[in-house]
């Protein structure tokens, strides 16, 4: 079984963020970057579990990003991926990333292409659906369970007000979320092994971005909190009705 796990580099949620060049660029200075949690905890770990259960296979990490992101790729290798591919480019937009994945994966015989349900920086949730459409593959969005038996894939995914059990034939694209696996912490042996695992760099495979961030602004916090005495719940209800107008 060959599995391609697409990983994105995102700022850790706790990082303080700032913008430079007249707010046109995100400042990377001092920012802690991590593998997007959905990609790492669910897509990657489930890929490893599927490979382990079968006793054979290959889990390849795929990343679009500059050389400075190799640290996070090595972390994915330390967790257990066999090898990695990095497209040497700033990731642009979702369409750009999807094109790189589709162009690279075409004809290579992957049974599964896994993505996280969204990234925690832009929360777009678009790459998986785009890859599926570019490659004309089945796509299961928001999967919380994933199993493979022979060429049949079974997944559980979100539907309105619940979940659904769905099946499709491999190869397929799956977007992965909570429920699919438990995060793994790389051990010393994994970290040592990661240093020598193959990490191939490839050039941009298809080049268009259709959107661009023109500028950013920091969101202002809320106005100072209004404290209400614990004995004055009638007053809180009145404020919610008359001032906030939410009830």
């Amino acid at each position, binding site marked *: 079984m060959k599995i391609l796990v697409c990983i994105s580099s995102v700022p850790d949620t706790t990082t303080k*963020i700032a913008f430079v060049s007249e707010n046109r660029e995100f400042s990377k200075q001092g920012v802690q970057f991590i593998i997007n949690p959905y990609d790492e905890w669910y897509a990657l770990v489930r890929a490893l579990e599927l490979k382990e259960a079968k006793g054979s296979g290959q889990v390849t990490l795929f990343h679009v990003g500059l050389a400075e992101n190799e640290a996070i790729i090595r972390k994915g290798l330390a967790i257990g991926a066999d090898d990695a591919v990095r497209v040497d480019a700033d990731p642009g937009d979702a369409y750009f990333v999807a094109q790189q994945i589709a162009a690279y994966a075409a004809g290579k015989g992957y049974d599964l292409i896994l993505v996280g349900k969204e990234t925690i920086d832009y929360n777009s949730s678009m790459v998986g659906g785009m890859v599926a459409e570019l490659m004309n593959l089945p*796509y299961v969005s928001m999967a919380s369970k994933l199993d493979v038996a022979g060429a049949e894939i079974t997944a559980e995914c979100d539907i309105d*007000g619940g979940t659904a059990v769905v099946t499709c034939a491999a190869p397929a694209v799956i977007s992965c979320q909570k429920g699919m696996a438990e995060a793994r912490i790389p051990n010393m042996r994994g970290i040592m092994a990661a240093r020598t695992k193959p990490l191939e760099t490839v050039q941009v495979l298809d080049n268009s971005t259709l959107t661009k*961030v*023109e500028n950013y602004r920091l969101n202002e916090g809320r106005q100072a909190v209004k404290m209400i005495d614990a004995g004055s719940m009638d007053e809180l209800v009145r404020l919610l009705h008359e001032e906030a107008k939410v009830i």
Partner: protein
Amino acid sequence: MSVIVYTEATKGKIRKNSLEAVTYAAAIAAKVGGEVVAVIDAAVDATLHADLGKAGAQKLLTVNHASLSAGDARAWAAVMEQVAQAHGAKVVVFSHDLGGKDIAPRVAVRLKAGIVAGAVDFPTIEGGKFEVRKTAFSGKATAVYSINSDVKVITLLPNSIPVGSSGAAVSGSAFDAKLDGVSSGVTIKERKTRQSTTVPLPEAELVVSAGRGLKAPENWGIVEDLATALGATTACSRPVADMHWRPHHEHVGQTGVAIRPNLYIAIGISGAIQHLAGVNGSKTIVVINNDKEAPFFKAADYGVVGDAFEILPKLTESVKKFKASQN
């Protein structure tokens, strides 16, 4: 020329998310010109069509195919592509909900259209520029995107704009979509839907959420009482779901569901950044916590310092009194 919009109905109503998307499409059409064309499954009861007109749809296309009623996202993407071509669409609008997240990226690929997913506001359209705002970095920032392609796709974050009501009546006409051989290849074997009388969390306008401060699962009665009195949906923090005190679908935050209700009441939740990431888009936030230093107070509009076990029953009584006075 047109602005087209994908719509859905559920439980005998047009989905509120869809009405928001229609309102959004109408606002865009008012600026760029052209007709607002809504698309809906022909199986949806025609008496509901009027609501789409009221929200701003000027034309309504009904599409009839078994795979559409079954929710096949590739078939829907093909329909939206065909409608976009037949009606010279400039912009294609979806809600950023489950349907939109599945169908919109496919439509963007098919039309080679730039997409902004999760817009929070009406676009700015001026002098050839088309700019769309969305929230980024866990609510810490807003990013302004320009879309460079001729055709543009936008998914609108639910509960970002009020539903319009000044539109005129609209009646559906059948759209003949070519769907032979178009299939996502995914078969639904079983649907496990939750029996629930409340609005599902992602669409709820009022949310009552509790965290580890409630101490044990058997204490949730007072949380549910408040939710029932308000007509709100319940949510919880991650540790509460991880410990199986509450079901996983109630978990909000960075790793759970992201919501932006009109009112979010957080009870016994400390306000960690990963929790805030999923709720800080809420219009009004009330925090109830016995620790006056709890970080959540910094992200709140109204705060109450005290013991949730004493405060909740009182708040529920006050809400009931208020509701009774409204009738």
